[in-house]
């Protein structure tokens, strides 16, 4: 009997050690990032000053929706990027210590840079000279 496509999708939520949930999450975050990244890229570069001017950046960041979207964007983007790098690393049979070192490095880099991005967004003061 042929499986229903919903069963097929549900089966990805089962395995705990298989990496299947991460695989699924990579697709979901990827599709979210298509909208966020392509939108971001076009918005920031549709004219030469839009993405490179303090005042236009400040006016965008005065909207809490925009700020919240960017916090999500930083986090989702970093997760997807580092998960993707980890995916590439897992395709090679490396020595265990090297695998763990790479995993640790990616994790620490991710936490530091997401923290840096959140810090920039949340401590941004438009009135500073």
């Amino acid at each position, binding site marked *: 009997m042929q499986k229903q496509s919903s069963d097929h999708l549900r089966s990805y939520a089962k395995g705990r050690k298989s990496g299947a949930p991460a695989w699924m999450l990579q697709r979901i975050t*990827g599709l979210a990032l*298509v909208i966020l990244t392509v939108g971001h890229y076009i918005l920031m570069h549709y004219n030469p000053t839009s993405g490179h001017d303090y005042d236009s950046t400040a006016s965008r960041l005065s909207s809490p929706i925009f700020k919240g979207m960017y916090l999500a964007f930083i986090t989702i983007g970093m997760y997807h*990027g580092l998960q993707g790098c980890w995916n590439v690393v897992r395709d090679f049979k490396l020595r265990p210590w090297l695998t763990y070192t790479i995993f640790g490095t990616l994790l620490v880099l991710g936490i530091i840079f997401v923290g840096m991005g959140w810090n920039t967004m949340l401590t941004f003061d438009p009135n500073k000279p």
Partner: protein
Amino acid sequence: MAYLQNREPVGAWTRIILAYKRYSGTWAYLLHRITGIGLTTYLFVHIWALSSLTKGHAAFQEEMKTFTAFPFKVLEWALGALVMFHAFNGIRIAIVDLGNGARYQKKLLGAVYVVGIGLVLLMFFLIFQNDLFASK
């Protein structure tokens, strides 16, 4: 690489490239990984560079003078090519994985290149509009 076994001995990289030659999907797989690693690297630089927003108006504008110089505009445009390929090939991967896309993945790949190259050419005019057209 079984189908290349009777060739004269060549280097490992050459063999890999020869084996990939005929399969556009394999090139897309490679390009997806390379652009993905490139974009992740860029994301680190991007977050680090924009942390100067907290230093105030003057410091940020001073930094942006560098980043709006001509070589950086070219890099910015090139970055768009990575974004467009990775984004649209990502949609293709999602369709192949979650839908019935394996049956028409080559056509989807064609669409990825057409839409991607179209948007990259459009971005050329947007990014370089001040250099291409006389200002009003």
